[in-house]
C-alpha cells in the first residue's frame, strides 16, 4: 500500500483533474440558460428562451437532420468494413498483417487537416460535386478503426471452439455465423456502431473540406460563431446535443463492459 501522504495527494490531484474536466461543461450548461444575449459572467438572469429559439430554428433543424443522416450512413459503412478487417486480422495469419492494421489507424493518426485536404484535392481532381455523400465517405474512413477496435477486442476473447463445435455438428458456414458468431459479437457491433455515430456526428475538421452546400450540425455551429450575438442559441443547441450524445455513449459503455477493458463489471 502507498504511504498515507501519497494517497492523500493522489486523491486531491484526481479531484482537481475531474473538476478540470467538468467545470467547463458546467459553464456551457449555465450559459445556455442565461437570459442575456451577450455571454457574461457571473450570469444575472436565467431563462429558457434560447432553447425555444433553437428548437424553432429551421436551419439548425435541417443541419441536425443532415448530421443524423451522415452519421447513420457512415457508421453503417464502417460497421461492415470494420468487421471484415477485424475478422481477417483475428482469425487469419498472413503476410503484411501489421501493415494492414496500420493502414486503418492512419486516418485518425494523421492530422484531420491532412485527411480533409487530401479528400478535397481528390474531389477537385475527379470533378465530383461535394454533397452529403462525400462527407459520408470521409467519415466512414476514420470510423472504420472504431468498429474494428471494438470487434477485434471481442473476437480475441471468444475462442473458436464454439464455431468448430457448430461445424462438427453439421452446421454450414452461414448457420454457424448466424447462430454462433453473430450473437457473440453483437454487443461489440452495437457499441462500435454507436461510437462511430458519435464520432461522425461531432466531426468538423474533415467535414469543412468535404461538405457541399448542405450543412451538418457542427458546420452550422461553426458558422454561428462567426456571426455576432448567436452564442446563446448555440449553447442551447450544445446542451441538447450533449444530452443526446450522452445516451449512445452510455449505452456503448454498458455494452462493452462484458468485453473487458472497462472495470466495474
Amino acid at each position, binding site marked *: 500500500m502507498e504511504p498515507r501522504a501519497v494517497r492523500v495527494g493522489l486523491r486531491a490531484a484526481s479531484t482537481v483533474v*475531474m473538476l478540470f474536466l467538468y467545470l467547463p461543461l458546467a459553464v456551457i450548461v449555465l450559459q445556455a440558460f442565461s437570459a442575456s444575449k451577450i455571454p457574461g459572467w*457571473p450570469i444575472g438572469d436565467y431563462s429558457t428562451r434560447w432553447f425555444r429559439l433553437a428548437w424553432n430554428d429551421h436551419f439548425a433543424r435541417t443541419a441536425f437532420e443532415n448530421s443524423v443522416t451522415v452519421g447513420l450512413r457512415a457508421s453503417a459503412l464502417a460497421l461492415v468494413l470494420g468487421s471484415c478487417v477485424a475478422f481477417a486480422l483475428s482469425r487469419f495469419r498472413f503476410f503484411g498483417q501489421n501493415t494492414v492494421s496500420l493502414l486503418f489507424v492512419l486516418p485518425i493518426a494523421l492530422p484531420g487537416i491532412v485527411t480533409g*485536404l487530401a479528400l478535397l484535392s481528390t474531389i477537385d481532381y475527379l470533378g465530383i460535386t461535394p454533397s452529403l455523400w462525400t462527407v459520408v465517405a470521409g467519415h466512414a474512413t476514420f470510423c472504420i478503426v472504431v468498429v474494428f477496435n471494438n470487434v477485434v477486442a471481442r473476437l480475441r476473447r471468444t475462442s473458436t471452439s464454439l464455431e468448430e463445435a457448430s461445424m462438427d455438428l453439421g452446421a454450414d458456414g452461414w448457420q454457424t455465423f448466424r447462430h454462433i458468431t453473430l450473437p457473440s459479437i453483437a454487443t461489440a457491433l452495437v457499441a462500435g456502431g454507436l461510437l462511430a455515430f458519435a464520432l461522425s456526428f461531432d466531426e468538423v475538421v474533415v467535414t469543412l473540406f468535404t461538405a457541399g452546400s448542405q450543412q451538418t450540425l457542427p458546420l452550422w455551429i461553426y458558422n454561428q460563431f462567426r456571426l455576432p450575438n448567436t452564442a446563446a442559441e448555440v449553447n442551447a443547441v450544445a446542451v441538447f446535443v450533449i444530452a443526446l450524445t450522452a445516451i449512445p455513449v452510455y449505452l456503448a459503455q454498458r455494452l462493452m463492459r462484458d468485453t473487458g477493458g472497462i472495470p466495474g463489471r
Partner: protein
Amino acid sequence: MTASASAAGPAGVRRRLSAFLFRRRRLKLSLLLLPPLGWIVVVYIAALAVLLLTSLWVEDELSGRILHTFTLDNFRQLWDDPTNRTITRNTLGMAIAVTITDALLAFPLAYYMVRLASPRMRALLFVGVLMPLWSSYLIKAYTWRLITAYDGPLNWALGKIGLGPYHIAYSYTAMWLAFSYMWLPYMVLPVYAALERVPASFLEASSDLGGRAWITFRKVIWPLALPGIAAGSIFTFSLTLGDYVLPDLVGGNNHDFIGNVIFRFQGVAQNVPYAAAFACVPVVIVIAYLMLMKRLGAFEAL
C-alpha cells in the same frame, strides 16, 4: 458432410459454397479483406497520393488554374518564408507542451483509479473521463473562449481568491489550457490500461526488498507506465498538431498554427498546391513521432 452437400435446393448450394470456402482459407481471407482494403486504398491512400501530387503542381498566378507540371517550387517557397518556420515551431511547441501537461494530469488520476479507488468509484470515474470526449468539440473550444475572456469565469474565480485579473484571452496560454482540456481523456485511458497491467505483486516485491516509494515508482511503475503514456501522447501530440478550429476560436487572429495557414491557402487564397505542400510538414512530423513512440512500445499499449 458429403450426403448433405449433394442435397438439392438453395440450402444445398449454400452448403457446398460453405464447404468450398472452408477448404479455401486464402479465398475466404481475400473476400474478407477486399472490401475494406479496397475502400481504404481508393478513398484514403489514393487521396493522400493526390495530395502529394498536388503539392508538386503549381498554381498559375494569372488564371488561378492548377498546372500539372512537376516542380519543387512550393516547397522552396515554403522553406524561404521565415514566418512558416515560426508557425511550425509554435505549433510543435504547443503539441509538446500539451502532451507533457496531459501526461502530468492523467498519471495521478489513472493511478488513483487503478490502485486506490473502489470498484464502484473506478467505474464511475471511467465513464466520467469518457463522457466529455463525446460532447461537442466545437462547443468545448468555444467555451474556453468564454472562460478565458477578461470578464469570464476564470478571472472571476481567480478574483475570489485574490488573484488576477489576467489578460489570457486570445493567447497561447488560453490555447494551451483549451488543448490540454480537449485531449486529456485520450491520455487517461491508455495510461490507465498500462497501470492496470502492473501486477500488485511487483509493487509488494519492490517494497519487501526495501525499495522506498520513490524507488518503486522510478524502477517499477514508471517503466511499465511509459508505453501507456507514449500511446496517449500519439493522440495529444497529433491532434494538437493538426488542429485549426481551436486556434481559430480560442487563439484569435494572431496565433496561427500550421492548420490555419493550410486552411487559408486552400480556402481564401485558393492555392491548393501550396496548401498541399505545407500539409506535408505535419505528416512528416507525425510519422517521425509515430516511429519514435513505436520504439517506446506505444502500439502494444493502444
